[in-house]
């Protein structure tokens, strides 16, 4: 019966960044913690009708936003570094 959340995934250079607007409460904690200051409010509304978040392509897929989201609304997948 596990619930399915629909994510919106963005590919950036270093990985994939997914926002689950159905989980995002628009608290902005992630935005503050992003080391690249690459996050901002999105037009997609979150679960409480407040804006959810989006990124721009300066994102380095560091995962910090995921780490600090109290609602697990962000998933970041770093691309495996190509082995030379």
């Amino acid at each position, binding site marked *: *019966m*596990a*619930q*399915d*959340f629909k*994510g919106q*995934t963005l590919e950036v250079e270093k990985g*994939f960044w*997914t926002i*689950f607007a*159905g*989980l995002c*409460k*628009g*608290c*902005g*904690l992630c*935005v*503050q*913690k992003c080391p690249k200051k690459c996050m901002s409010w999105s037009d997609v509304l979150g*679960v*409480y009708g*407040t804006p959810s978040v989006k990124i721009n392509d300066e994102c380095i897929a560091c995962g910090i936003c*995921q*780490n*600090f*989201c*109290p*609602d*697990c*609304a*962000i*998933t*970041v*997948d770093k691309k495996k570094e190509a082995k030379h």
Partner: protein
Amino acid sequence: MTVQPAMPKCWRVETKPHKFCPGCGHGLVLKALGQAIDELGIQDKVVFGCDIGCSLLSWDFFNMDTVQTHHGRTNPVITGMKRANSDIIGVAYMGDGGGYAIGAQHLVSSATRNERITAILVNNTQYGMTGGQMAPTTMPGQKTETSPYGRDAETTGSPTQGPEMVAAIAPEGAYVARGSVANMKQLKGYIKKALENQMAGNGFSFVEALSLCPTNWRTNAKDTWKFLEEDMYKYFKVGELRVPGPREKEGQ
């Protein structure tokens, strides 16, 4: 492959989004707890007890057996359970009001009796659930609903140093630490050690987690972090206070 939210495995997806406010630190503490439980693979052993306080909102948070108790009484409920069935890994989850005010006798006594339970206390410097009154952890000058002109240390005292208190009285075998949701990895590590300490039968395990309450702090995201990392860090020192060494089994 469709991406799924990176929730700890032991979180109950059906009850998400959870009931905490936007930006609430409870979600972060429970993420750290969930990750620690996942890593230890003990989801089926843990019984989670939540206090009355915003922690009660976690009564259906996990795919783990959960008991919502009374304000301040989670320590005794989990203690009673653990005493009755030592196979259980008991987690008592509470707020600073529940642990340091109304339930202080239970915290102190669980500590001196070295109850084999893991207590996690969320310090958000006030009473979240009831709308932001002064707590034992409220900082000097901090405005709350019952210290509307700022907490006056002279007449109402100083913020309770909980882990320090527990560390001062708990017998050998106890684990005591203070973590912060601003350092999730460390916090998860502390909680994990606290669970392991219980599993090893060493003694009481206590982690205070410095947390966030944007609702009652009336802070935006930026000030929320600032409140924690600038103001709270001044009064509450993050770190481990008691780490039991490897311990000879003395016929426990």
